[in-house]
């Protein structure tokens, strides 16, 4: 069955379609499932029994079930037909993870949809019901194997509702992509990077104008400007405010520091460092050949750095059909 459906699917390769896509009757294929074939066999046996015993009710039941099968076929097709699909932006992932493209299914007003599935090849299908006139989301899971822009290519949307006797499906391809960051490797931030100059400690307990980090008990010598006076008024204990991040100091994550490594390995390493720096709240910049991200911190900055790593030496328009290879 699968091979046949695959073969049918190769007939029309049109490339991405403009969204939203309405599943018209013309683009829906339908074939009996294994259960459908089994059902037909049981009916055949029942028919022979009815003929042999000349049993009228046996005939009647056989015919009723046969008619039910035929009607079911139409319903399976109609359960899919008229559904409107469109995509939404996919959150970036790291290579090695699965990219989940959110596919939005709209049921037309008046008729609900049941058990509609999106098949992400080899990743199991996920199902959802859609109430009439409402929308539902299904993730299209695609393994992200290499960094860059991942285009999921064609995917199959199908349904076997109501009785699981027929399999109706349609192929859809959207112009959507997901940013795949390089896979971070297992290294840690090297000490040399942290304090190339021993005189300049990265974590500064005294420097005062960066992000508030927490309170600790007062030690003689702390600057009065850093004492939490409001707190002291309430509790008698002197506490000192702690701040994080060296104001004038920032880390440089540099491609050139990683001699002796292959390009992809360097990117993996840098990705790890970016993540670690971000987690530790450092201020950091990223330097790649020909490109640079000025030192900064924060979520947006992290995303900018990761994006640069993901798309390094890859044109953003390049179509990397990783799924075809997978």
């Amino acid at each position, binding site marked *: 069955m699968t091979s046949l459906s695959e073969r049918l699917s190769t007939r029309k390769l049109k490339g991405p379609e403009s969204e939203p896509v309405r599943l018209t009757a013309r683009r829906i294929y339908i074939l009996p499932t294994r259960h459908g074939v089994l059902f037909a066999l049981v009916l055949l046996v029942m028919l022979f029994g009815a003929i*042999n015993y000349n049993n009228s009710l046996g005939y009647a039941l056989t015919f009723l079930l046969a*008619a*039910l099968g035929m009607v079911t076929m139409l319903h399976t097709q109609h359960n899919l037909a*008229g559904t409107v699909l469109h995509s939404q932006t996919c959150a970036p992932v790291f290579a090695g993870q699965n990219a989940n493209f959110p596919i939005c299914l709209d049921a037309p007003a008046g008729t609900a949809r049941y058990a509609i599935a999106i098949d992400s090849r080899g990743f199991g299908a996920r199902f959802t019901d859609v109430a009439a006139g409402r929308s539902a989301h299904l993730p299209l899971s695609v393994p992200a194997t290499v960094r860059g822009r991942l285009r999921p290519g064609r995917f199959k949307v199908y349904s076997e509702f109501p*009785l699981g006797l027929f399999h109706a499906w349609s192929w859809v391809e959207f112009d959507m992509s997901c940013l795949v960051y390089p896979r971070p490797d297992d290294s840690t931030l090297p000490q040399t990077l942290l304090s190339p100059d021993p005189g300049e400690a990265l974590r500064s307990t005294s420097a005062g104008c960066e992000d508030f980090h927490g309170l600790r008990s007062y030690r003689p010598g702390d600057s009065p400007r850093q004492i939490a006076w409001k707190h002291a008024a309430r509790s008698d204990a002197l506490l000192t405010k702690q701040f994080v991040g060296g104001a004038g100091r920032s880390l440089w994550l540099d491609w050139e520091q990683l001699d002796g490594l292959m390009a992809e390995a360097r990117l993996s390493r840098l990705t790890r460092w970016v993540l670690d720096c971000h987690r530790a709240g450092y201020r950091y910049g990223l330097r790649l050949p020909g490109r640079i991200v000025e030192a900064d911190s924060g979520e947006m900055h992290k995303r900018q750095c990761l994006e640069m790593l993901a798309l390094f030496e890859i044109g953003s328009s390049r179509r990397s059909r990783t799924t075809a290879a997978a």
Partner: protein
Amino acid sequence: MIRRRADFSLSPAKTLWLLLAQALVIAPHAPRLPMWITLTSIAIAVWRYLASRWQWRAPGRVTRILLLALALAGVLASYGTVFGRDAGVALLVLALSLKLLELTQLRDVMLYLFLGYFLITTSFLYSQSMALAGYMLVVVLILTSALMVVSHPAREARIRPRLRQSASLLLQALPVALLLFLLFPRVSGPLWNLPKDAHHGITGLSDSMSPGSISQLSRSDAVAFRVDFDGEPPANAELYWRGPVLSHYNGETWSAAPPRRLRRSEFHVQPPGVHYTVTLEPHNRLWLFALDVPGSIPNDSYLTQDYQLLARQRVEQRLRYSVTSYLKHTEGARLSHYERRVALQLPAGENPLTRALAQRLRASSGNDAGLVAAVLRMFRQQPFVYTLNPPLLPTHNGADAFLFNTRRGFCEHYASAFVLIMRDAGIPARVVTGYQGGQYNPIGGYLIVRQSDAHAWTEIWLRGRGWVRVDPTAAVAPSRVEVGIEAALPNEAPGGLVFSHNSLLRHVALMWDSLNNGWNQWVLGYDNNRQTRLWSQLGLGNASWQWLASALALTVSGALIVLFGYLTLRQRGANRDRVRDAYQRFCRKLERRGLARAAQEGPLDYVRRVTRARPELAGRARRITQLYIALRYGPTPNAAQLHKLRGLIRRFRVRRVRR
């Protein structure tokens, strides 16, 4: 809501629904099955439910094979065989239950449910009553919704919407099923030999009669056959449905002589004949019932020397046949020596008092007819009682005890005593069993003959007149023959409700029977004969097998196309926007003249562009646009405006520009 397909599991709610379906399927079989099978099924069902509840593991392959072997052995022990109808059903029920042990994949559950469908068919081998059919329709609905519930990947079982949906599916399937039922080419006769136990346990007349056998039968109000007369039915007193003719008496039991085929017709009939069609319930015997005497007989049947109508094969299916009978007839032929000897046979030394009575009457009456009259007069005048509950007679000299002692009896007592007196007096006589009368159903316009109408009467040979029917019961209880058994036995009504004098209940009962008759005629009796008859009635002549098949294919696909159209329209109807449709027509008219509206162009911008390009259209285009905006974007659109808009658009013409 989102579920992966791979991790199949049967939630307790779904399991419960499956088990309900199974219980309903097995229930009609349960009274016929040995107790241990029913108990096993219940035990496995309970285990299944608990297993799905507490996540118990399914038994391994070895256990399952062992259980299957045990089941086989059990069936063998209970039935002595594993083949045949009863053992086969028992095996199927066990197989269905054992399948519950291994519902690990969706495929298993599907197979299980398909097996359920199959088990329904086996129920129909035992009974095809309307009630069972109605019950099974409900079971099909539940099985189908169970199929829908398990094939839907959601974990929770939403029973009520699924029930509604499967009911709607079945309803939509009904027309197609009807077409298949009517048009699918029927084959006559079995494809392979039926097992011996295919037809068992059917009540009806037998080929022997002893005191009490017919009164026993009379207590059943089961239908023996139904008769459809062409024209008016004859009077009740003339309705003697001839069955087995019993000539041999052993002192207690009357039995039939082996049938001999009638070589030549020995009677002269007087037209007009009575034409009628009998729908005989299967009784697993050879005889067919007809009024005396059949002039034309159905195919596959023949008349015997004693005018019994016999089929060539046992009546195992409900049988329809048409007969023309001639109620007025005379016999010219003489009795052969053999026949005379059979008709005078008496066991030696039995019933001396009867013999003496016969000889006394013989002496006192002049001729044979006088003797008959004398005996009947005796029955009429002396205190003989017609009753359904006569006292028990001794095995020896039973007739003596009846005539001189008890004097209470049912038709078989009177017929038996009368024939003995005749034989003792030297007149050839025999007992005829069958049915007398019947109940006319004015709703369906047919006659119902029940087992309670079973009757025994006699025939005597009168020189020059041949066999003459004499019904001694008529002498004791004339109303039995003229009206029916319920009039003759007002206080011991045999059949229950059917014989009640309550007219409403009687009416309902008649309606019910009429319905049953229709069911038998059109559903159960629909075979290849009826199929061809239907075709010829529709004026299609002798439709061939191929013709039927292509008609079937055509009509079924037609019905499916209609359904497809209905579904599509329903979907489209929900999304249709008449206002937008009308406006799009307007846009198309302009588009044909090169003024297509861009997808993102609003109506005002569009009309502005149109008026710039074609100033002569300005007025109409603006009015249309204004109406459209009011309808589509305005707060209170109304039907009158829509009507106006459509009119305007219909009349809107864009002339071609000459360049």
